[in-house]
């Protein structure tokens, strides 16, 4: 029993890694007043470019760097559309997602699967510090021991974080106070996109070691849900990610037991989405949306 519990906790940390990275990225972005629905596509595109580069160069590190650059490039396109031009954030984000997915699928077909093959790399291996819980990929350690505290410090303690929160709450006031709204939002979107890219690259370069169609499978949307579920707070966001990952890891184990084999696991997979919607309904009018959520800023 203890073994199974340890297995479940260990695998939920793995499942939580890309979700936490993408959700933290979305949180930083949304705190600046911009909703990035490109999260699913940025994860998808980075997952593909990461493994494609790694397969060509033979270096996982080069693959990861390429994935992060892809994320930054996608973020730049999104920032240009939504911040500079001020187009609908949801349309631009959805468009970016469809663009990244169709591009990756086309490129995957051209580069790897036209002769029926599949791109594979020898992925990063878990580093064993003893026991199933402490046998994790380096990106998982880095995410929870380094990225999470860093992001907390960035948002709560650094000058940049203060600026990001200011332009997300009240861009007019921030502008009057001498904060460059455009530059700050670009920065937040870029940081966020790089986080999302890291989450996507983790899946192909560590978790799976190959690329197949639909590899992200809605993880970007789960990340989006976690940000709201966490009410734009890093601690709550991580708690949500942990809960979802525990359920997800647990259901894999539960399905092996005969008495649970008839429970439709789709219900469990739908839980994070439903939890967000129920959570929103219960909180009612008290949801702490960033003040300038979804609002482009134009100086008059």
């Amino acid at each position, binding site marked *: 029993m203890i073994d199974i519990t340890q297995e479940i906790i260990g695998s939920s940390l793995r499942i939580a890694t890309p979700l936490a990275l993408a959700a933290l990225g979305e949180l930083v972005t949304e705190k600046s007043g911009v909703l990035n*629905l490109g999260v699913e596509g940025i994860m998808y595109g980075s997952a593909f470019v990461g493994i494609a580069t790694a397969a060509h160069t033979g270096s996982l590190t080069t693959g990861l760097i390429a994935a992060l650059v892809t994320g930054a490039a996608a973020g730049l396109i999104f920032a240009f*559309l939504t911040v500079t031009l001020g187009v609908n954030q949801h*349309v631009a984000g959805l468009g970016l997602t469809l663009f990244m997915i169709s591009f990756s699928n086309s490129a995957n077909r051209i580069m790897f699967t036209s002769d029926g093959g599949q791109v594979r790399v020898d992925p990063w291996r878990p580093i064993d510090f003893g026991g199933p819980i402490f046998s994790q990929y380096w990106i998982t350690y880095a995410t929870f021991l380094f990225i999470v505290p860093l992001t907390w410090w960035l948002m709560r303690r650094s000058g940049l974080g203060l600026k990001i929160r200011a332009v997300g709450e009240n861009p007019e006031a921030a502008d009057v106070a001498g904060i460059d709204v455009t530059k700050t939002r670009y920065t937040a979107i870029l940081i966020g996109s790089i986080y999302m890219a890291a989450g996507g690259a983790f899946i192909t370069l560590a978790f799976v070691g190959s690329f197949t169609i639909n590899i992200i499978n809605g993880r970007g949307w789960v990340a989006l849900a976690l940000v709201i579920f966490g009410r734009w707070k890093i601690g709550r966001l991580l708690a949500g990610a942990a809960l979802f990952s525990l359920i997800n890891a647990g259901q894999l184990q539960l399905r092996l037991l005969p008495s649970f084999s008839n429970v439709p696991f789709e219900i469990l997979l739908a839980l994070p989405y439903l939890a967000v919607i129920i959570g929103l309904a219960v909180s009612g009018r008290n949801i702490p949306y960033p003040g300038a959520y979804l609002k482009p800023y134009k100086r008059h």
Partner: protein
Amino acid sequence: MKPRFALRSSMPWWRGPALIAAAAFVSFLLSAIVVRWAGGAPISAFHYMFISPLQTRFGITESILSATPLIFTGAAVAIAFRAGYWNIGAEGQLLAGTIGATWVGIHAEPLPSIVGVPLILLAGMLFGALWALVPALLRTRLGIDEVVTTLLLNPVALLIISGLLNGPWRNSETGFPDSDVIAKSTQLPIIWPGTRVHLGLALGVIIIVLCWWYVGKMAGGLKLRAVGMAPGAARIAGLPVERTLLVAALVSGGIAGLGGSSEVAGVAHQLTTGISSGFGYTGVIVATLAALSFIGSLCVALLFGLITVGSFSASRALEIPSTIGEFVQSVLLLTVIAALVIQKYRVVWTRGKK
């Protein structure tokens, strides 16, 4: 020197069309690069994609068939966006419609067609509207932003379909996760003999005309547009803003759900997890490219149907990926939304820091 965007005070008439043409040109250029990369000749690929399906009856009718679900989702998105209700959930609402339609279809054996067909259409519409109900109530009652709630219900609808197909609706003959074939009496009649074009197309066109007529010509439609353009002013003017949003959301969901019925009862005749290849998401592109006009949505949907069929024939002939069609569509969206904004602004170069 720093660039800054300033609103244009006047605009020559040709600037809008010219920018859209430029956006289309950029899209083709980017697509040509991908085609070239795949080892195909871009001109030949575009010929297969846009011209050759129009040269055969089969190509034309298959394009219309591919366009049919997009007519529904395009109209669904357009009517919601017109009211300022940002429904990103047409995908889930269409999927909910396929669930309702299948439920009627596999239980309607003894009914005659005159009952079965209206029933399956109604079921899809109802399920689509129901799927839109929760986010709509959260928005109108509690002020909860609908973008994320409508979006998050899309994967939920797909999971429910997957659960049904792996459970109670598993195919009773093959054991595969597809539903049984729906009753003959609930299948939509073919309206173009010798092809696969079915009653759904006629319904889609009727929906487009009804939306155009209602939103453009009726008092209710004027209210809807007023709420969409200036909700604050509409509220001060005494318009029932919340009620208008709720109705727009439910109508939008109903239209998307009808599109689900049309796919199940008109083409697939059974439910599969692949019943929608992202029709709801493509509907957002369709409506946006049409600048939320209904007649425009119909035209863009037909164009996208052509691209879908054309990209498959280009893929077969030139051995390029068939996903090039989706690539063209998404690039068109990104460039056109940029062009639509840029046409309103001029770039001013300013000296110094600010």
